[in-house]
């Protein structure tokens, strides 16, 4: 039997399996791209290297027992939250920078966009995959941090009980309360949430830059530049709005920095949380709104630029 004869014996398509009528915005389509993106990103070695590094950094805080418990908890929180912040920021930029260029280089973008898939759905699905990856990473590292904090807290409590075994009960209670208050602070949760939102902002901004960047290296370098300038934006803003004696060119420069760059310093709340300052609901809510605003705007702009991109 020839191959041609083989082919003619194959089954007919079942008409009832014909795809549903096209819809402009489809959640299932976006979710399919999100899931695929997440699987693709978790297969990259850089993800595991960064994650292991971050977990090691968090775990290494266990060896701070030579300090007093206040010092130990201070360093543990700083190092752990710093590790979570560095890792999520790095991952946001590195994972997103290659997202669209990789697909275009491999021509898989043709296969996807030749289907009834709007470019908007494609871009949103891609960034959603990154945001999901960042959420999972933040949860894993956050959980590791809290476990280490709990273990050290328990060790400090036992040590305190041993040291004050003969002391009056109220003195012991005060000492134990001091240990607990140095260790766990409910404000750590909103702090970690804001770290995540900052990473989301960076991911969306990286996506936007990658839509008109000429190479992945260019995207990463530009994002590094934006990262530093973003932490100075608040200073530039205050100078622009308050200083009236500066030269015009200085004021224009400051205005561009203020308007174009995000205020990344506003998302560094963990420094204050670790220092023991309570974060009010107003501060948390406004910071969260700002983060969501930036993430949404950058995603929409990325979709806008990508819409007109010649593939």
């Amino acid at each position: 039997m020839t191959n041609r004869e083989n082919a003619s014996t194959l089954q007919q398509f079942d008409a009832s399996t014909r795809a549903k009528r096209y819809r402009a915005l489809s959640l299932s389509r976006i979710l399919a791209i999100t899931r695929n993106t997440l699987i693709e990103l978790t297969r990259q070695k850089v993800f595991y290297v960064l994650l292991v590094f971050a977990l090691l950094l968090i775990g290494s805080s266990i060896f701070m027992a030579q300090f007093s418990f206040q010092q130990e908890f201070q360093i543990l929180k700083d190092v752990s939250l710093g590790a979570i912040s560095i890792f999520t920021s790095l991952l946001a930029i590195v994972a997103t920078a290659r997202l669209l260029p990789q697909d275009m280089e491999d021509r898989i973008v043709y296969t996807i966009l030749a289907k009834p898939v709007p470019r908007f759905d494609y871009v949103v699905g891609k960034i959603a995959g990154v945001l999901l990856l960042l959420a999972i990473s933040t949860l894993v590292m956050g959980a590791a941090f809290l476990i280490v904090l709990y273990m050290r807290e328990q060790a400090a409590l036992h040590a305190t009980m041993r040291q004050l075994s003969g002391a009056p009960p109220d003195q012991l209670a005060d000492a134990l309360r001091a240990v607990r208050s140095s260790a766990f602070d409910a404000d750590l949760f909103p702090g970690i949430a804001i770290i995540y939102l900052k990473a989301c902002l960076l991911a969306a901004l990286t996506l936007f830059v990658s839509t008109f960047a000429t190479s992945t290296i260019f995207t990463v370098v530009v994002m590094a530049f934006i990262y530093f300038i973003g932490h100075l934006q608040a200073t530039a803003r205050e100078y622009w709005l308050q200083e009236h004696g500066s030269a015009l060119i200085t004021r224009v420069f400051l205005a561009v920095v203020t308007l174009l760059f995000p205020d990344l310093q506003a998302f560094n709340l963990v420094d204050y949380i670790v220092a023991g300052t309570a974060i009010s609901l107003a501060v948390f809510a406004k910071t969260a709104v700002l983060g969501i605003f930036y993430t949404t705007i950058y995603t929409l702009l990325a979709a806008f630029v990508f819409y007109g991109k010649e593939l």
Partner: protein
Amino acid sequence: MRAVVALAVLIGLGFLKLPIERNLAALHRQEHFRGVEFNLDLREKIGQLGFIAALSGFRAIVADALYIQAHAAWENTEWGRMLLLFRHITTLQPRVLLFWDTAAWHMAWNASVAAMNDQKQPRLALRVKAQREYFALGRDFLERGIKNNPDRPDLYEALARLYKEKYKDHERAAEYYAKAATLPGAPTFDRRFSAYELSYCEGREREAYERLRGLYDEGPQERLPTLIKRLKFLEEKLGIPETQRIPDKENKTVK
């Protein structure tokens, strides 16, 4: 072309986000979040690494790394290096009370004792001078710490302890314990300690007596042995009538 339009939109939206960011910054100031002021002075103070860390939002980690170095310097009794490191640390993290407190403790307690016991310095006068210089450094850390954290009682208490134990200045000690007591989160003993210190001040016995008596009248939780002892002392010194004195049974030693 679309990229240019997008950038223009971004600048336009910048005006939209400006009030939100300003509002947030105002809230931060209201809640006493103190960041780091970026200027050349800072760059000189904290060096290149610290400056980059401050720029990139990782000053906490750099401060902790310097803190560990300061700990090592303490173990090696390198007081000069410790002083420099703690200046960097407190510049990077002005809102962490632990750093100000530890810096002050190292200077005013550890370094000053080391200076007094310095075998290499035979002249007592110079050893005392060095000791007092370290007291001043410790005091300076606490005063600057208070400037950066005016709403927290801890550094006021630490400064009160410094005045009490090192300068033997009970009046100042009383003043700072009293300031601490007015702040949210202050422990209850701050009021007592302020009154105790005041009771040692010549010419302020009446004031001290009234405060201690006020605390006594609040209830059993304040009637601690030291309070009773100082109250009795002041009753004697001020010649308080018997009918107004606290009962004698309070004089019994409480084990």
